[in-house]
Structures are given as structure tokens and as C-alpha cells.
């Protein structure tokens, strides 16, 4: 394989992963709005797929990921099974978490994904601790922790990033900056120069990247993870992207300037940009459409299969709470 073949192969894989994430979330939104099968809130990452795909291709299955309430893309890109994830969103048996967590608590420990989190910023200290534990055990695995731009205004950001700095831990913090904190423009509630500057103030090397340029994300993450794996300590990647949907799938996001989302979709869609990269490499439109069609077909089938799966057994309401004093034995 020549270097250019290699580049084309990776570029195709990045596109395919972004298409799978997009298709999964489009189906999840249909399941919520059209089918009324997703009963709780889901937080789509449509338009942010470049970060998930570009970052995660640099992590091994046994490396550790912690993610956010907007974590479907990260989880899929880490290697989780789409059907198990969709079952989880539908609260069904065979979901990643047995239907007990739903979208906001999705986790797949089998691929090193130690949980999305319903509390903004809460994963930062936990991820630092996972890296701390790996270091204590002499492991060569590393950790990636993804949080949003809203999280840098919470205390655990300071405490967790400082912790990683003073204990010199093998962790990459990623601020996936989609520019909105729920319904508030993050820049309107954030002092100073933002995520990278704050990380630098705590002693981390920080890099900023265009999160909608999946090739750039993959390249810069490769450099960073090489340094972390070599014992270089924690780093911060500030990936700037844009949240095309509302905060949840139910949120119409009327608080945004008119036309903002449409303009980004037209001019700065990570999937369209990667298709252009591949077209420049000589890949045909038909081949690119095949990648899209395969992702669509996979996720349509995933939703159909998930919808045909039963709800968990009622007894699961009491399982996996604790061993000592378990509600299976005594719940009152």
C-alpha cells in the first residue's frame, strides 16, 4: 500500500464512521419524534461527527473513554455496537446497559467506554481518576475524556484538569466546543480566552483544532496521543464545532440567530467536507454514496431490530444496585 492509498483508506474510514454516527442519530431522532419509541430526552451530535471520528481512530479498544450526555458519536466511534446502543435508547433488553441507563448513561465497558454522563463536567474528575488508576497499575493504556464547552465553567473542570496535571496522568481532555451551553451561547457566560487557555494555566499543553475538519482532528490527535503514550503527560484538545440541533431533539433552538444553523450546514458540514477530500483523492461520487447508503441501511435495520426487542424483565429494577443490602433482598 502506498502512502496515498493509506491516506485514502483512512479518509474513507473516517467518512464511514461519520456517516454511521449521522445515520444512527437520524434514526434515533425518528424513533423519538415519529415513532415515540425513545421516551426520554436525547441530545444529538449531528454536525459534530468530525470530533468523534477523528479523535477515536487514535484510541485502542482497551483505552478508556468517558463522554457526555451528547455521546452517541463518541461511543459508536469507540467501537460500541449500534444495535445495543439503539436498544438502550429505546430502554430495551440487550441494550448496552440493559435498558437501565438510556441515552444519557450509555456505556460499553467491553470497548473501554466507561459512561456518558447526565451531569455536565462530572466525567472530568472520573476520567482523571481512571488515568490515575491505570498509572498506579503500570498499564500502558490511556484515557480520553470528552466534555462540552459548558463544562469548563464547572468546578470539576478545574479540579480534574489540575489533578491530571499534578499527578502527570496519561489522559487527553477534549473540549468539544459546539458553542452552546444548553440554550445559552457559551461565549456570553465564559470569562477569559476559553478552554485551551484555562488548560494551559493549569500546566497542560493545549491545541485548538477545527472540529469539523475530520482529517485535521485525526492528525492532531495522532500527534497528541503519541506524546501521551510516550509518557508526556496530560494534554488538552479544544475542538471547535457547531451543534446543529437544539439542546435535545425536542428543542427547536429558536434562541439562535436566524439562519445560523442552516449556514453551518451548507458551508461547514463535516461529512460534506470529507466527501470533498475523498473526491479530491479521486474517489467517485458513486463510491461515496455507497458509504452513505451502507450507513443508512445499517441504522434503519438497527432501529427496526431494537424496536422488535422486548423491555427488560421487571426484576431488573432491583438488580445491580449493591451486593450488601441489595434491594433484591430488602428494598424497605
Amino acid at each position: 500500500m502506498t502512502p496515498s492509498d493509506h491516506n485514502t483508506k483512512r479518509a474513507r474510514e473516517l467518512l464511514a464512521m461519520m456517516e454511521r454516527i449521522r445515520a444512527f442519530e437520524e434514526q434515533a431522532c425518528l424513533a423519538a419524534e415519529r415513532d415515540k419509541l425513545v421516551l426520554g430526552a436525547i441530545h444529538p451530535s449531528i454536525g459534530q461527527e468530525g470530533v468523534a471520528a477523528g479523535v477515536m481512530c487514535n484510541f485502542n479498544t482497551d483505552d478508556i473513554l468517558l463522554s457526555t450526555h451528547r455521546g452517541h458519536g463518541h461511543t459508536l466511534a469507540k467501537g460500541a455496537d449500534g444495535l445495543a446502543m439503539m436498544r438502550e435508547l429505546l430502554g430495551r433488553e440487550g441494550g448496552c446497559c440493559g435498558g437501565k441507563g438510556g441515552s444519557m448513561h450509555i456505556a460499553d465497558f467491553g470497548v473501554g467506554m466507561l459512561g456518558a454522563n447526565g451531569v455536565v463536567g462530572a466525567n472530568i474528575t472520573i476520567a482523571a481518576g481512571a488515568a490515575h488508576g491505570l498509572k498506579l497499575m503500570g498499564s500502558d493504556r490511556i484515557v480520553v475524556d470528552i466534555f462540552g464547552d459548558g463544562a469548563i465553567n464547572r468546578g470539576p473542570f478545574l479540579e480534574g484538569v489540575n489533578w491530571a496535571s499534578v499527578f502527570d496522568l496519561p489522559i487527553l481532555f477534549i473540549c468539544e466546543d459546539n458553542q452552546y451551553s444548553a440554550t445559552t451561547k457559551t461565549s456570553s457566560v465564559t470569562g477569559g480566552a476559553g478552554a485551551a487557555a484555562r488548560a494551559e494555566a493549569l500546566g497542560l499543553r493545549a491545541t485548538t483544532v477545527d472540529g469539523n475538519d475530520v482529517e485535521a482532528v485525526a492528525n492532531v490527535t495522532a500527534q497528541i496521543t503519541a506524546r501521551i503514550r510516550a509518557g508526556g503527560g496530560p494534554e488538552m484538545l479544544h475542538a471547535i464545532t457547531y451543534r446543529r440541533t437544539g439542546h435535545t431533539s425536542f428543542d427547536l433552538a429558536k434562541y439562535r440567530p436566524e439562519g445560523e444553523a442552516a449556514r453551518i450546514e451548507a458551508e461547514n458540514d463535516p461529512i460534506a467536507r470529507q466527501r470533498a477530500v475523498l473526491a479530491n483523492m479521486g474517489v467517485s461520487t458513486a463510491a461515496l454514496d455507497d458509504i452513505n447508503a451502507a450507513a443508512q441501511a445499517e441504522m434503519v435495520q438497527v432501529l427496526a431490530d431494537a424496536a422488535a426487542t422486548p423491555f427488560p424483565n421487571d426484576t431488573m429494577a432491583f438488580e445491580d444496585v449493591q451486593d450488601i443490602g441489595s434491594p433484591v433482598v430488602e428494598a424497605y
Partner: protein
Amino acid sequence: MVKMTYVEASRAAVREMMQADETVWCVGEDLGRGSVFGQYLGLQDEFGTDRVADTPISEAAIMGAAFGAAMVGTRPIVEMRFSDFALCATDELVNQIAKARFMFGGQSRAPMVIRKPIGLWRSSAAQHSQSLESWYVHIPGLVVLCPATPQDNYSMMKAAIKCDDPVVYLEHKNIWGMEGEVDTSLDVTLGEAAIRRAGTDVTIVSWSDAANLCVKAADTLAAQGVNAEVIDLRSLWPWDKKAVIASVRKTGRLVVAHESVAVGGFGAEVVATVVEQAGDALRGPVRRLGAPRSLVAYAPNLEDKMRVTEAMIVTAARETLGK
């Protein structure tokens, strides 16, 4: 049997478990200097700074990081210095640690011992004196322990470290120097109460340092011809309903005494359970003693207004007997 103080007993237990299992480690502020009450004295010299880790004053990160480290296979002992400070790590304990195993469908475990010294400690005022054990009992996922003697602080600490669930371990600050004989071969089953004194006339249920006060009150009652049975629950979740109900069925009388605020306290849970499950056995009024729902002051006379005393326990026990 070895004579140990309450603080020496827990330190011996931690040391023994660290020697036996290299995944056990301690994390918190000032541990290299022993922490506030000397619980870790000498351990950093023996086990090094990785396994007895000095941290920034970052309670949320101490709790959250220990949780992350637990999820990847270590068994952290988390030091919060004062239970009051642990409130800075409430999200980490309540929303993350207690819930992860359930939310993730059984994929994770959080084998952690979370030490939060509780209780009145002369003139420490409102932010260093609380006993919030009833809060933790209210949170599914947590085991809640309140050792009151050197023996229990040894045996229960070892059991807590071996436990695969997150354990909120509430030592009482006022009894670090309490001496007692410790049988290092004695194992306890978490959730089993200790009958601190056997009796037939009235059941007195308590935990933590208040249980020691109840034992003294029982001595006084004995001199007055009242034979009280003192049950030290030791573990509040799970708690030993069987021992309490069996005792009430024997005595027909019940006093519950605790240092924490009476309103909404765990004593109410004990009384309600007895009334529901053994109400027919009660032959006198039930008495529940706890702190008034006010705040702990600095001035000693004001602080004393928040105390349950030996005399109050004696009076309450006599009242259940119509004396």
C-alpha cells in the same frame, strides 16, 4: 487480643489490607502527615507516595478520581477529613458512585471506602460537627457504616475494604483515643448489629459514639434495677432489623438514641419499622432521642444544647417502663 485506640485500630486494618492487596490505596489531603487525626501515620513511609497519595484540596476530584480509579480495577480508600467537607463531593458520591453500577446495567463496580469523620468535637462549630448518616442511608447503592469501638473500627474497616460496594465509613471524631481490646482474628458481617449489653427490660438502639453513651446509661439503669439491652447497629444500611425486633419482642420497650438531628433522622426509620413489624409487642411508649433541629454552636454551653446526654437516655428508658 491487642490493646488499641480507635484510631490505631482502623490504621492497623488499613495497613493489613494494603499489605494483602496491592490494589488498595489511600487518597486524600495531608495523608503523608497522617491526616487530621493521625489515621494514616506511617503509612506513606511504608507504602510510598503512590499508594498513600497526597492530593490538592479538591474534594470533588478526590471523590471523582477515586471512583474512576475504582472502575479500572483499584480499591481506593478515600479520606474526606471531615464529613462536612465531603459535601463538596456530593455529586460525585450521590450521582456518580452510588448510581454507576445500576445505570450501566451492572458493567461497573465501585469498591471504595469513603471515610467521613462525623460528630461533635468540642467547639468545632457548625461546619465541623455534623452527623449526616441518615442522608447516606437514603441513597440506594451505598453501604453506610458507623463503628463505635476499637474492635469494630478494626473489623469493620477490613470488611469495608473487602466489600465490592461503595462504603460510606463514618468514624466519630470524639473517640479517636478510645482504648479497647481488639481481637484481630474477629471478622464482622456487615449489617449485623452488636449487642453491647444484654438485657430484658428495655431495648435501647443506637450507633456511633451515642452507642457508647447508651452503654453508660445502661450501667446507671442497672444500678436502678432496670436491665437494659443496648443494640449498637454499627451498620445503618443494611441495618439489623432482626436483632432489633427480636429484642423488642423480648423487652416490649424501645428507646432509640442518636447524636444527629432527630427530625428525619434514622431513629425515625428504626421506630417506624418496629411499629410496623412488631407493634403488637410494644408494652409502653416509644422514646426517640436526637439533637434538636438547630445548629451546633461554638460556645460550649450552646453546643451542649445539641447533645443527647446519658441522663436523657436514662430518663427515656424509665419512661418506656412507666417509671
